[in-house]
């Protein structure tokens, strides 16, 4: 059970999710306080993005509950969800910029859709955010013409254009060189300080997590391995957490039975030769 305190912004309660038969999150508990940067860590495939998607109401969980700013996201109506999503910003792993819109049009889109401001005001507001992310002058470039770092910054600019209270960021530093990744971390810290946003960042990069986190939650096999401040996580004597911290590959402990099941499952889902498409 997650303890609800006055400043609890997000509370995740016994969250269980599956893809098909496969268990991804297993009765997961988590809480995020107002104004903090919570970093969710875990190896690739540990379910970080799934957790994020469930918190956003994009995936329905098998059971459990996610409460954000008083809304039960997991049981909300479409209307309530849309209302809630107007108050948050999301930057996706690959940027998810719209390929047929220029950079500035991408960033203006939420303002165009949700406000009655005139075109000039919208343009100025979008320019301000581009400026903040050090992207001014690139207004009319198409997403395909942007570098990896620029895409992430653009996604961040679009996520904050409505001045949300809560920001989600999936893998800010994935696929970036260390210098650009560090830059991006600076932007995230700036957002917290200047705009007092509550920020949830998903990452598997240690350096990045240690630079920005107020608290870190480490996911492991669908559960929370540890949740605490940077020092608490560093001091953890959980072997798997230490392995993650020291970048040691921890071999999956698989019993012969599980191994057999794994093999047969792959067999069953592989398309057979001779199947007809369409």
């Amino acid at each position, binding site marked *: 059970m997650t303890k609800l305190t006055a400043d609890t912004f997000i509370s995740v309660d016994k969250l269980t999710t599956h893809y098909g038969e496969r268990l991804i999150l297993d009765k997961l508990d988590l809480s995020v306080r107002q104004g903090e940067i919570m970093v969710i860590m875990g190896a690739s495939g540990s379910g970080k993005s799934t957790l994020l*998607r469930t918190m*956003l109401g*994009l995936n329905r969980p098998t059971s459990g509950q996610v409460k954000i700013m008083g809304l039960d996201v997991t049981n909300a109506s479409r209307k309530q*969800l*849309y*209302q809630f*999503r*107007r108050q*948050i910003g*999301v930057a*996706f*792993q*690959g*940027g*998810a*910029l*719209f*390929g*047929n819109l220029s950079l500035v049009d991408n960033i203006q*889109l*939420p303002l165009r*859709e*949700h406000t009655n401001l005139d075109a000039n005001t919208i343009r100025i507001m979008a320019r301000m955010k581009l400026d903040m992310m050090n992207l001014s002058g690139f207004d009319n470039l198409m997403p395909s013409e942007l570098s990896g770092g620029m895409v992430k910054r653009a996604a961040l600019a679009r996520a904050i254009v409505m001045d949300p209270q809560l920001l989600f960021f999936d893998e800010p530093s994935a696929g970036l060189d260390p210098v650009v990744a560090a830059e991006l971390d600076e932007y995230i810290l700036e957002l917290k300080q200047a705009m007092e946003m509550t920020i949830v960042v998903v990452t598997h990069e240690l350096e990045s997590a240690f630079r920005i986190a107020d608290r870190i939650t480490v996911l492991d096999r669908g559960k929370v391995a540890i949740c605490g401040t940077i020092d608490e996580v560093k001091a953890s004597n959980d072997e798997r957490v230490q392995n993650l911290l020291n970048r040691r590959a921890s071999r999956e402990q698989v019993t012969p039975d599980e191994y057999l099941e794994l093999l047969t499952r792959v067999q069953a*889902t592989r*398309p*057979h030769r001779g*199947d007809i*498409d*369409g």
Partner: protein
Amino acid sequence: MVRAITRLGEKTIEQLEHLGHLTVFLMTVISKLFVFPFRYRAVLQQLYFIGAKSTFVIFLASITIGLALGLNLYVELSRLGVQDRLGTAVSLSIVRELGPVITALMVMGRAGSAICAEVGIMRSDEQLDALECMAIDPFKFLMVPKFWATLISVPLLVAIADVIGVFGGYIAGVVIFDVPYGAYWQGVYTSIDWQHLNMGLIKSLVFALVIVWVATGKGFLLHLDKAGVYGAEGVSRVTTQAVVMGSILILFFNFLVSAFMVA
């Protein structure tokens, strides 16, 4: 043997489930087709892409079909000594059957595949999720304009194909062979009445719906595809599936509408 039957059963259930998802998708779009505000700018953009940019291929397809039809029918009709009826034969075949079918197949191959790939890419790089997270309904924002544009442009393209096709028949019969100018056009004018044009119109609307439904739906449901591969590979697979499925459905509905309207 038992395994084979089990597989067949699983496959069938999978396909039925997929069809169910596609149906729900279609119903959702239709329920939002008339919801305010009408995104006329997006519709115009799509009209340009789906309609205007298809005219050239439609022109090529229908002129060649008209020519070939004119040549073949001339040979048969002149053997019976009724080559004066060429105008009637060509125009009825084109307006009732070939015009709508050829147009629909070309639009499915050209615009349908592009639409499917576009929507599929939006699914695979989370652009559709991004829309959801900005509280923008992807159905109203993306699908509805594509539906309107296709429903408007396919009948217009069919009209173009009809005219060009009949003209192709004219070139074959009158210019190349010896059908009298007056007899050909007389045949065209007298034979075409509302009933035939109606069939052409109904077919074009049905085909338009099939094209845009299969193209957008297949792309939109990319993530539910049981092969479980996303990215470029998944997009190209569902695009191929969409073109095949769309083309077969077009031919099937062509038969169905013909049978229904003749009976």
